């Protein structure tokens, strides 16, 4: 095997350009004759558009075109990608999401007009000259009020603010209710999963181009999935034929989910480019990112855990209100439902699970998948109520989890929430955690903290999540409007080096390093001779992109399958060259040889033969060495983990300091442990941000109070402890060829409950009667809980 194959901690090759300022992001592209676009955005959360007068703006210097909602009445809306059916059998409510607001504005930041000008400054000046008469109406920002329908409707035409009222699994409802009614002990917890603003380092940006000579369109944009964006623009929004539209997602500076979706600005710059016959560029300001990117989380939940007096779980029942904001973003309906409800059995052999989710329209920015997407919400609810239950029953939090863990000999395990977990070993992870996090030494550390006047607590967490979205046949039954396979083309060039075109997009995940490791490992070639091509629909096969920790498990498996096909064909070519039958040829470390002999031919010679077929079995084989595979997974993958954190609380101020954060994860086969560690560390930082700092807050008029980096606290280096990451306790994924499960979101899923559990533990041990504090556990909230 060559150096740098599967399992090698190779440094990320893409970092050479990222760390030396040579990355090329959307805003770095300025095609000749580029014009600039700026948007007029609503300052009120709910308002009737009486008129939008762009005549003065149109007369401003440099202005080339103005647009309002009127211009897009005839085109389609941006659709939801997943149809959810309510408990009563009714389909979800799907109000149209227009390119530009028409008739009403529905959240602060809702774009109702746009200007294209010669320069950005001219466009911005002209936006200020747009006269909009918008009659402000009462906004509804609070989900309980929105559901009650007491105030205004976000979408008058659907006559409700409830998008759907979903039950999972509805047939299990009666049994779960009955189990809870008869249970010896029931723990109830009400909690809020705080709204998060994604804040990728690179704001969204889009450049539309149109070639009048060919009729071809090109969109350069900040996307995690260029083919999906092209499909949405072509089939739903603008109706541009797919074959006439190229979507290019070059280097993208972080997505975290927020760049999965098709946004109106992309459609606008394409339409404007067509109208003007010139490139049109738009780059979001940070303020626009706050107001108009899809936010994350924002659940209000009541969870009940019923159990025996010895802590054996009997049932989990959850009622959740999930904020979807003012419009349905592409994955906003699946995130709080199938990506959340199906995980509500956690790592446990609990027999009864029932989840009710109401998705609620409010006059706030749309909410959609954000790193973890539904699974952080599930894990947080479960692991918080389990901790509370353990405290009520006087059982050690590790013990109560172990008592209910699915055991390693029980796989495949059909969970009560409808998933079949294929592999895992939660007890071994917990064994490892006890050692790595040194539970035995906690009391001594606590005594030391007490000497310094600090309250120390230990929080733990166990999680399982579902990655590798997803088996298309399963998600189709559940309402997905797309398939969720991925695709790869492996092209062996005549000189033997290799280009791999993949459907997944890399924007921090390290695909350019990790995917070649798979190919190199299988072909016995130098990983440096393998390059990844991604992000350009004119070059890559139709793949579904990067989200849900799916790239390696799904697209990596497509790479694996395509490489298998390469080996199959190359073996036939080698057999011809060696004058034997293919079944007598074996392939090891880049060399084809006749079994039991030293007659052999190298991979490079075979590649050359494929392209210079002078002496070639042309009647049996096509020339060339290029193969494509589409891979549709048989199941989700199920990464799991056990996390621990110790915190110190300053009783004078309520400030929480994280002393340690230990993450043990089972990701199955790890292709590049250095990249995986980096992924987990990034996820932990975001989870710590959610737990301690971040909060997207709207006031009752719908103004975003935490609408800038002045008020929205992002985690910084000094908020983080030394992170201990260990993924050595692995069980192989049983159904994909690599055996990998996915690691991108784990840190953000496992860490928030760990930290809140630790804070509550610290306060409880310190003699305070506190059983819950909502995130972010800010000093003021902790202090208030201690001094209530």
């Amino acid at each position, binding site marked *: 095997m060559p150096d740098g194959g599967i399992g090698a901690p190779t440094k990320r090759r893409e970092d050479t350009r990222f760390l030396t300022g040579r990355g090329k992001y959307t805003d770095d592209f300025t095609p000749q004759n580029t014009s600039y676009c700026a948007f007029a955005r609503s300052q009120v959360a709910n308002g009737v558009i009486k008129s939008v007068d762009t005549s003065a703006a149109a007369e401003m210097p440099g202005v080339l075109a103005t647009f309002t909602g009127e211009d897009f009445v005839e085109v389609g809306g941006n659709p939801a990608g997943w149809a959810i059916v309510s408990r009563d059998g009714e389909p979800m409510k799907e109000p149209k999401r227009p390119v530009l607001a028409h008739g009403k504005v529905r959240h602060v930041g809702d774009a109702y007009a746009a200007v294209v000008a010669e320069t950005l400054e001219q466009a911005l000046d002209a936006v200020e000259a747009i006269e909009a008469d918008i009659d402000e109406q009462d906004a509804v920002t609070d989900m309980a009020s929105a559901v009650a329908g007491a105030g205004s409707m976000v979408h008058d035409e659907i006559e409700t603010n409830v998008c759907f009222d979903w039950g999972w699994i509805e047939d299990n409802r009666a049994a779960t209710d009955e189990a809870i009614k008869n249970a010896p002990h029931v723990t109830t917890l009400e909690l809020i999963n705080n709204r998060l603003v994604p804040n990728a380092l690179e704001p969204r940006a889009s450049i539309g181009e149109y070639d009048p000579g060919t009729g071809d369109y090109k969109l350069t944009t900040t996307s995690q999935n260029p083919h999906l964006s092209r499909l949405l623009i072509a089939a739903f929004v603008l109706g541009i034929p797919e074959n006439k539209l190229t979507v290019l997602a070059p280097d993208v500076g972080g997505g975290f989910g927020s760049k999965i979706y098709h946004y109106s600005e992309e459609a606008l710059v394409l339409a404007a480019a067509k109208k003007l016959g010139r490139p049109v560029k738009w780059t979001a300001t940070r*303020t626009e990112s706050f107001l108009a990117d899809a936010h994350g989380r924002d659940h209000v939940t009541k969870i009940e855990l019923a159990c025996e007096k010895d802590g054996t779980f009997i049932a989990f029942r959850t009622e959740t209100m999930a904020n979807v904001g003012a419009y349905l973003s592409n994955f906003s309906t699946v995130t709080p439902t199938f990506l959340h409800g199906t995980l509500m059995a956690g790592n446990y052999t609990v027999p009864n699970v029932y989840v009710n989710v109401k998705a609620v329209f409010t006059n706030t920015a749309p909410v959609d998948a954000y790193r973890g997407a539904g699974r952080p919400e599930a894990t947080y609810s479960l692991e918080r109520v389990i901790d509370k239950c353990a405290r009520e029953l006087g059982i050690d939090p590790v013990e109560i989890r172990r008592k209910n863990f699915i055991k390693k000999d029980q796989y495949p395990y059909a969970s009560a929430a409808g998933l079949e977990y294929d592999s895992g070993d939660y007890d071994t992870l917990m064994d490892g955690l006890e050692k790595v996090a040194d539970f035995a030494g906690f009391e001594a550390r606590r005594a030391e903290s007490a000497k310094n006047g600090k309250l120390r607590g230990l929080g733990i967490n166990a999680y399982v999540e579902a990655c590798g979205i997803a088996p298309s046949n399963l998600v189709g039954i559940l309402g997905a409007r797309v398939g969720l396979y991925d695709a790869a083309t492996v092209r062996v060039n005549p000189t033997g080096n290799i280009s791999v075109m993949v459907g997944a997009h890399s924007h921090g995940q390290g695909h350019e390093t990790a995917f070649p490791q798979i190919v190199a490992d299988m072909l016995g070639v130098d990983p440096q001779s393998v390059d990844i091509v991604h992000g350009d629909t004119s070059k890559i096969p139709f793949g579904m992109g990067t989200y849900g920790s799916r790239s390696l498990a799904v697209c990596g498996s497509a790479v694996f399958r395509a490489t298998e096909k390469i080996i199959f064909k190359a073996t036939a070519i080698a057999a011809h060259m060696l004058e034997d039958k293919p079944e007598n040829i074996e392939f090891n470390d880049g060399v084809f040889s006749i079994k039991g002999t030293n007659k052999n031919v190298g991979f490079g010679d075979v590649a050359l033969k494929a392209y210079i077929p002078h002496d070639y079995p042309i009647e049996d084989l096509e020339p060339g060495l290029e193969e494509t595979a589409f891979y549709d997974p048989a199941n989700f993958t199920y990464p799991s983990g056990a996390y621990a954190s110790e915190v110190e609380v300053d009783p004078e101020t309520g400030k929480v300091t994280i002393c340690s954060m230990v993450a043990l994860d089972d990701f199955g086969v790890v292709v590049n442990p250095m990249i995986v560690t980096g992924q987990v560390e990034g996820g932990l930082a975001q989870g710590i941000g959610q737990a301690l700092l971040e909060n997207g807050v709207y006031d009752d008029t719908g103004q975003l*109070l935490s609408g800038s980096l002045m008020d929205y606290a992002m985690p910084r280096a000094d908020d983080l402890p030394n992170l201990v990451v260990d993924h050595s306790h692995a069980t192989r994924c049983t159904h994909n060829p690599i055996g990998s499960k996915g690691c991108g979101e784990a840190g953000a899923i496992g860490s928030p409950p760990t930290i809140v559990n630790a804070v509550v533990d610290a306060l409880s041990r310190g003699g305070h009667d506190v059983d819950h504090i909502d995130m972010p556990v800010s000093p003021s909230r902790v202090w208030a809980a201690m001094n209530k």
Partner: protein
Amino acid sequence: MKLTDQRQIAAERSAVWNAILNPEVLKACIPGCEELTGSPEDGFEAVVVQKVGPVKAKFKGEVTISDIVEGESLTLSGQGKGGPAGFASGSADVRLSDVDGGTLLEYDVDAKVGGKLAQLGSRIIDGFAKKLAGQFFERFQDGLEPETAGAAEDTKEQETKKGWIGRVFSS
């Protein structure tokens, strides 16, 4: 944001009350006020120019006086639209009572902003609103109280011992 403060003014309660209902006084006291027309009964139209952090804007809006309890309390409400800069609205509940040496003016202010202003962040906006309210009532107080002997150069005004509000009324 909400803020509460009070000022002790060396003037008769009736003088304070009359001043607060006077458009000229309001115009002089509202920081950055360029125009103010109207009456306490019908409300006022105002144009105010302000710079908040990096955002400078001309706000056009209305000021109304409500909940009038003669000589004791009233509510001043205002809302202004600053075009692309956003909008601001606020109200001040004002209560007057007699104290030794004059009148105690207490106020509770509730201010809201939207649009670009709101995204400046509450550190800037809250501090700005507090400063603005402080300036308003400080000017108001200064206008009612007699100027100190050394501060005024005009001997005629020294004799009358009137603040500028007094001059507004006597003119």
